[in-house]
């Protein structure tokens, strides 16, 4: 079981882990949160639809 943990117990000289830096940066999260669905859902979906051959 993990012990209760607060930032006050941390060593102030310890480097901040990458994941915490990511989670503490709302604007980087905003970029990722918009770009991932824009590419995976919207862009890919629209490319799929535009790739459907037109009926003659």
């Amino acid at each position: 079981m993990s012990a209760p943990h607060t930032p006050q117990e941390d060593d102030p000289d310890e480097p901040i882990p990458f994941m915490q830096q990511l989670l503490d940066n709302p604007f980087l999260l905003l970029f990722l949160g918009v770009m991932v669905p824009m590419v995976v859902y919207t862009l890919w979906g629209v490319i799929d639809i535009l790739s459907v051959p037109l009926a003659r």
Partner: protein
Amino acid sequence: MSATTYRTCPRSGLQFEASAEKLMIINAVTAVVALLVGGILAIGVVLTRWPAVHWLDADTFYMVLTAHGIDMLIFWIIFFEVAVLYFCSSTLLRCRLATPKLAWAAYVLMLVGAVMNNVAVFQGGSSVMMTSYVPMMASSWFYLGLILFAVGALIACFIFFGTLVIAKRDKTYQGSVPLVTFGAITAAIIAVFTITSGAIILIPTWLMSLGVVQSVDALVYRTIWWAFGHSSQQINVAAHISIWYAVAAIAFGAKPMSERVSRMAFLLYILFLQLASAHHLLADPGVSTAWKVVNTSYFMYFAVLASMIHGLTIPGAIEVAQRAKGYNNGLFEWLRKAPWGNPVFSGMFIALIGFGFLGGISGVMMGTEQLNMIIHNTIYVPGHFHATVVVGTTLSFMALTYFLIPVLFRREMIAPTLAKWQPYLFGFSMYFFCLVMMGAGTLGVSRRHWDMAFSGAAMAYEWPGAAYLMMGLVGMSGVAAIAGGAIYIYVTVGSLLWGKKLDQGAVSEKFTPIPPTAPTVVAQSYGSAGFTAPGTFALAMVFLVAFVLYYFVNWKYLSTLWGLA
């Protein structure tokens, strides 16, 4: 910087900045007005879909259903969410709100947009449902109203982000933002994607309604519209889960079981939750199987995992806090001794259980491409999303309101006994409403249709009696839920109008004059509680068994629909 004041609420220890407080109040009150309008319209919807009553004529029904959908799913929810965003930034971080004048402009844009859209619908020429699929055209005012509303909401999101910058600059908190605020960040990020998608597709559609653009491709419209239509409900998920963490912190002093795990779960939402929009297009031929499978299976399951983490860690955090108070007998004394008479807690917990068991499990089933074929475009779909949006989000917002009446609105709640029972009436009638809707949908009853009997149609369909029975039960439970909603409106509006005025507490011109104070200290700080929660793990196993069984039953059902040679 313009002068402002900070009020310290004597009942909660929360600190409200004056301009943020006014904006929270006006957005929350407007949300409740939208809920009132949507609730009145719900009477028309359920009494028409109740086959024995079949109240409204077809034209009126489609108009009422359109307005009900937009007022409930867009206006009620997003006005309230803006209030939540301002609360989670300015109040929980104890700083001033960024650009309050712009926040008022955002509110006016949202209000004008909402009114414009409603007027367009009630004029009768825009009964196009919430989805407003092209080429079926509504009045140009319908689209313009939605666009103005979306622009206002987008501005509000960026004011939230600006407030985070102010709090960081002024060092009003140490280390990471509180988890509740992090959940609000998640909601705001999803909102930016959602609203941007709405603008991308609604602006050309608006131009099409004006004759400026000749056509908008129907498939492209559906794809991009659902990035708006479904993701708007994912804002709700992030927002109401933040509220669950807040209620656990306020009512029990419960710290999250693990801040890191809960934040990682929110990160999974940020990256993957919006992709669930694809399950609306599982029956569409234009998008590829790879796109469908990646979006609704591989990636969406990360978001499902995140929901299950929250579903475990929130009751788990409550259990750890209760056990620390001495409720250690057996697996469930902590739950039996919870404050079930407090609507803030009961509303939140009924929302959590209903959201997980009804909305969550049915959502995963629907998001599976093969199983989706069983229920696509049936009334099962509204059964699912009433479990997520009404049981999950609306009931959570109602629970939070009961906390905010004395804290934010500074009024003593009227009719406390009614308020005590309201979450049970509303929540359990909605549980039943969703279940019978899903039952009728499994039998194939269409969503949105005015007359399930297809009276007078050349090719009528003979429904089994159970379908009519369940649609009758939809009507009855719907009326009970509307009564529960009416009690909420009565208690909240009545408290604002007639409730005894409460002490506003000390007012100071100083910046962040106080440290976080009980009973909301946990909601404003960082820290984990650990994983000693055997009762919650037992409940999680019950959930897992229900999940597996329901999934299996639907595959079994699918296998009986088409005989294989």
